[in-house]
């Protein structure tokens, strides 16, 4: 085994389809062996293109992809030994489940006994024993999905790619499959590269998430870091919800800065990308980090007017007009203590300066 920290390595990859627009721009990405990495991003951000280049169905316009330290740009897809789960499963409709799973083993000329053992193992992994002789059309969407996963794993590939595999399933099934795929990954330790535009899917399953936008990786980090510590305003807004204030840095120290908003109000924030006085910035704050009637003394403490109250079952969302931001969202757990949450009331809202992150100004 080569370098296990960069088992899959995208080295300065450019990709253009038409010679005019770069879909992927100077992409660098290292994926460790056994890791579950998700490429997350809006559609058209280049994430699927990256996956297709890794699978070998697209060629990089520039740069090189390494698999276990070997360049693979000139290796055709069928020799890469990469398993793939397609968006619409791509099960062979004229073959039974057994034949679908036997396909990758048969082309590798694996003896029948051994192949049968592998197929059994793969099917039991997705709990589909006894379905060998069914045709794909006779299976439900979730079952087809499992067969597709089993087929991508049955020949013990080094890497498994999954291209929005859960997109066609309904919500409950999707959540269930998320856990199953996660557990399968944990139990066999294969390297998984997963593409999705669904952030909750990414947050649930991955070891690390690469957020794509505009052909570039915006941030590559653990799900909790990604959510708690976004490094730029795109990530902050793309992942989860955030309240933003636009302003200018007027005072800055090592771990604190003062931002003057366009309305004239001043707030304290945690300088992430801003370096000096006078810089434009977007301050981002997670809704659940802001508290009503803060008991302890918080650096930021402002009054806001309740514009809208939306009941969400386990929590209530409140839209405030705060410091000129009419879209300021608060999330409060539903308990009996919230007395004065009424439309039109004015309430005190406070947060710690380290939770409001001063990022680039877009």
């Amino acid at each position, binding site marked *: 085994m080569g370098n296990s920290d960069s088992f899959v390595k995208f080295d300065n990859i450019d990709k253009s389809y038409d010679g005019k627009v770069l879909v992927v721009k100077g992409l660098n990405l290292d994926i460790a062996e056994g890791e579950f990495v998700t490429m997350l991003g809006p559609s058209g951000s280049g994430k699927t293109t990256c996956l297709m280049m890794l*699978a*070998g*169905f697209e060629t990089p316009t520039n740069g090189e992809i390494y698999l276990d330290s070997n360049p693979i740009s000139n290796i*055709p*897809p*069928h*020799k*890469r*030994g*990469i*398993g*793939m789960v*397609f*968006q*619409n499963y*791509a*099960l*062979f*409709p*004229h073959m039974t489940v057994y034949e679908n799973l036997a*396909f*990758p083993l048969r*082309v*590798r000329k694996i003896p029948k006994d051994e192949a049968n053992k592998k197929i059994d193992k793969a099917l039991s992994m997705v709990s589909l024993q006894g379905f060998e002789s069914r045709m794909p059309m006779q299976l439900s969407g979730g079952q087809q999905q499992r067969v597709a996963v089993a*087929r*991508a794993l049955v*020949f013990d590939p080094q890497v498994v*790619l999954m291209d929005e595999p859960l997109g066609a399933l309904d919500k409950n099934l999707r959540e269930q499959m998320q856990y199953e795929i996660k557990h399968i990954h944990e139990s066999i330790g294969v390297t998984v590269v997963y593409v999705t535009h669904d952030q909750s899917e990414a947050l649930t399953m991955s070891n690390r998430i690469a957020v794509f936008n505009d052909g570039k990786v915006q941030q590559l980090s653990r799900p909790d870091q990604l959510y708690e510590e976004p490094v730029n305003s795109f990530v902050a807004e793309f992942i989860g919800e955030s309240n933003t204030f636009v302003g200018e840095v007027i005072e800055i120290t090592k771990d604190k800065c003062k931002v003057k908003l366009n309305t004239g109000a001043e707030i304290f924030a945690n300088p992430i990308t801003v370096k000096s006085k006078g810089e434009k910035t977007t301050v981002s704050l997670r809704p659940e980090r802001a508290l009503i009637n803060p008991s302890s003394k918080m650096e930021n403490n402002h009054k806001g007017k309740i514009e809208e109250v939306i009941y969400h079952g386990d929590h209530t969302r409140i839209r405030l007009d705060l410091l000129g931001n009419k879209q300021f969202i608060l999330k409060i757990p539903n308990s009996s203590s919230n007395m004065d949450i009424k439309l039109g009331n004015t309430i005190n809202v406070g947060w710690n300066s380290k939770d409001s992150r001063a990022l680039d100004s877009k």
Partner: protein
Amino acid sequence: MSTEKILSSDGLPLEVSLRKAERRNKIKALLLVAPLFFFILIIYVFPIGEMLFRSIDDRKITGMLPKTFKTMENWDAKELPGEPVYAALYEDLSYLKETKTYGKIIARLNYEKSGFSSLIKKTVRKINKFEEGNYKEQFIEVHKKWGQMAYMGALKRAAPKWTFAKYLKGVDLKYDPEGEIVQVPEDRRIHKILWMRTLNVALWVTIFCFVLAYPIAHLLATLPMKYSNLLMICVLLPFWTSLLVRTSSWMVLLQQQGPINDLIVMLGIASDDNRPELMYNVIGTFVAMTQILLPFMVLPIYSVMKTISPSLMRAGKSLGGTPLVAFYKVYFPLTVPGIGAGCLLVFILSIGYYITPALVGGASGTLISNTIAYHMKSSLDWAFASALGAMLLIGVLTVYWIYNKLVGIDNIKLG
């Protein structure tokens, strides 16, 4: 299970009220379909049925010699018949002479056995001089053929209302004087050759069409829209051109002084004074029919390929299949329904193809359909033409049946 009848709210059994509610819709649907139904009945089923019926219809002669045939029913045709048959023959022929209609039976009887023409003419001329009684002797006196089993047997064979003689003729068989089925003399066995040639041409045209159409259909299904539209127009263009024009243009191209021959000479494949004959033989038939029938193969295959997701081939490759294996194991089996539809369509069309072989086929390139046309238009043997047509129909149905056994007719897709 309870057999109790469920009643609807107005007290009627549910079944009855359902039928009542649906009746209006059913009548409406029937009325919509009725014009088409009658149209098909009048211009399709009836004329074709009538035409096919002619191939076995032999009632004309039965009606002209009614008494003779009636008395012949009891005759075993082992030796000459007795007096009653000759007496009945006398009555029938007298009547035919009176009404001057005996000419009509001559052609039919002559077909059964040559020599009847002079026999009937001579007999009719002298029939007024016959005396009552002992007709057998008088007949034989007029012409000794009346005393020969060959002629009397032939007469009896003409008796039934229905005959399969035309079908036998279609495969170069006939009844011999003893009523046995035998082959016609070797120099007259032309139909079997025609059948074999027709099948051969249909088979090869189907194979050529498939070989040419499969890559075209694949291109059509996979090219980006703007190119595939253009290609589709190229495929369909022949459809929009008259069949006659297309065949004639092949005649222009394939003739001995035509551009294709010029090219062959220019490339040095053949010398100028030894130009190959590309037309008026089976080559011309192959080339022109393949080109003309190609769209019928392309379209069904294309429409099936269009439904095959490109990710299936990708899946095949990513699972370790070489492009060839992925094609052979994944893509090709999925196109089989389209191939089946296309092959069946082209084979059935080419087995009955007429204009093209007639124009570019020459003597060695004509097919069974040209013979049918010949008998319809020139020899006016409609019964035979219709028998050949019926045999062609049976052939097509057999192909269909075999296809159903091998591939299954549900497994056919035209789009």
